[in-house]
């Protein structure tokens, strides 16, 4: 039996590698996507010289950054200066571990013995809390880097990032609590499974969704909440003093964060890999391809659906960025503390009320 366990292990390892690989690749091409989306929205063409349609643009940027002079400002804390981007990158990558990218892959180890490997790096039963914990650490990368740069603008950027992230985490958490009340589980996989078919949370939690996505924008430091790095005010914000690949890490981490939060949005509110009519599709596939292959192909389709949803939200991030002006610091705080937190609490109360009173009513009506 050791043999079969090993295969399952290998599948798992491949999935994990795949997930990280995909995350990195998506982040890499998000930079290209950002430039193209920006260009298209501005009636331009965007990068098209590096390779066909400019597809090698991210590679060119990466190679250039690697061979750029690595600059560490004098009188700054050297180790912290290096630690900053590393932390950013690390925390950004860690989040993708608990996101269920797909249903599961079945593997028949021996006749009658089927292994069922979920397409997820690790399914912890406190998945959401894990994401939350890691995201809340993400700000350290920015703070440490900004402080270590020993530059006024960087420090201002770092401080803005810190206060912004703390403030918006609260309403984000409150928005999620409403979801948790509905699902009764902290495991993201569990939450996704509950939205089977077209039974997505967005239909029950529209307000929660708006709060969550706003907070996600703020957590990723994207326009209209890009105060920590806004070019016209703080030059580059926390990464003003960074050059070469350390800057690359920061920029990269931002895009990973974007992708991960898009994946979170689609898992929590848009059913992850679920789509209407998935049972029918699966039944058809199993009917034509057999039990195991059919299931696996259905998983693949689910994965693609999930991927499509996530990419749409990545696109949405960019769409918003190239449309809206940004807030001012105090307005951002006002929105967070005076707007979103009360709204999120109202949302919790409403959800609670609905679960207590509306749900039995609807249930009895349905019966």
């Amino acid at each position: 039996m050791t043999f079969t366990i090993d295969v399952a292990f290998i599948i798992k390892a491949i999935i994990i590698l795949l997930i990280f690989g995909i995350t990195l690749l998506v982040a890499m091409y998000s930079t290209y996507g950002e430039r193209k989306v920006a260009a298209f929205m501005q009636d331009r063409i965007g990068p098209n010289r590096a390779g066909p349609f400019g597809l090698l643009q991210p590679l060119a940027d990466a190679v250039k950054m690697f061979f750029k002079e690595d600059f560490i400002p004098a009188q700054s804390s050297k180790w912290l200066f290096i630690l900053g981007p590393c932390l950013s990158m690390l925390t950004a990558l860690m989040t993708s571990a608990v996101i269920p990218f797909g249903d599961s892959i079945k593997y028949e180890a021996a006749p009658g013995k089927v292994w069922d490997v979920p397409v997820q790096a690790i399914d912890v039963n406190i998945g959401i809390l894990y994401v939350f914990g890691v995201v809340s650490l993400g700000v350290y990368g920015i703070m440490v880097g900004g402080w270590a740069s020993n530059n006024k603008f960087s420090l201002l950027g770092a401080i803005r990032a810190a206060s912004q992230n703390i403030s918006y985490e609260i309403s984000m958490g409150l928005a999620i609590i409403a979801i948790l009340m509905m699902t009764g589980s902290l495991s993201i996989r569990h939450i996704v499974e509950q939205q089977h078919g077209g039974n997505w949370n967005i239909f029950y939690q529209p307000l929660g969704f708006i709060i969550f996505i706003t907070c996600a924008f703020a957590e990723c430091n994207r326009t209209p909440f890009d105060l920590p790095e806004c070019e016209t005010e703080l030059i580059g914000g926390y990464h003003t003093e960074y050059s070469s690949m350390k800057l690359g890490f920061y920029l990269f981490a931002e895009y990973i964060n974007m992708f991960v939060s898009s994946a979170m949005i689609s898992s929590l509110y848009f059913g992850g890999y679920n789509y209407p009519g998935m049972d029918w599709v699966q039944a058809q596939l199993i009917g034509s391809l057999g039990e195991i292959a059919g299931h696996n192909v259905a998983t693949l389709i689910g994965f693609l659906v999930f991927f499509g949803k996530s990419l749409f939200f990545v696109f949405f991030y960019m769409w918003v960025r190239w449309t809206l002006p940004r807030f001012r610091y105090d307005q951002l705080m006002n929105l967070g503390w005076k707007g979103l937190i009360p709204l999120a609490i109202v949302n919790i109360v409403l959800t609670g009320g609905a679960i207590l009173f509306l749900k039995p009513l609807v249930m009895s009506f349905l019966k």
Partner: protein
Amino acid sequence: MQLTNRSKQVSNKQMTFAERIYLPAIATGLGITIKHFFQKKVTIQYPEVKKNLGPVFRGRHVLKRDDQGRERCTACGLCAVACPAEAISMVAAERQKGEENLYREEKYAAVYEINMLRCIFCGLCEEACPKQAIYLRHDEFVPVFTERDQVIWGKDLLAENMNNRYLRKAWTKEEAREQDIKGIDAKPRTQL
């Protein structure tokens, strides 16, 4: 303070409820940008596609020759005087016997230099020239330089190349106006 009866108040700072909750305006904005996303792009792919620079673009200088290939310039110096950047310098010389096929007038510019980095392409030299000898080409730029010592162009670069002559529809603004009024689509030609 009102000084005239033409003033018009344009700034309304009261927000309606719809404006207060951000979302409608955001949706409008998103609608506008996504519309542009699918619109035709206006970009000109420059090195491959070149835009028409207009009929009177002031580009690279050329010292005109007449149809026999003789230089028109008579080194009167008006262009140098008219140049606000003082970029033109010249040395005049008397035409010798046997040089009639080279120079049209009895005096000519033995040295005619323009500092291409000083030049501001204002067109005053072209306007000042009584002999219509200097022109700013409407179809070509001065190329970029990588060395400081390339920037002073002498007659070797300025004088018109007889094998590749500079063509123009109208050589004076009066001529251009006449063509325009009469609606003539003139052919580009070499000479005035």
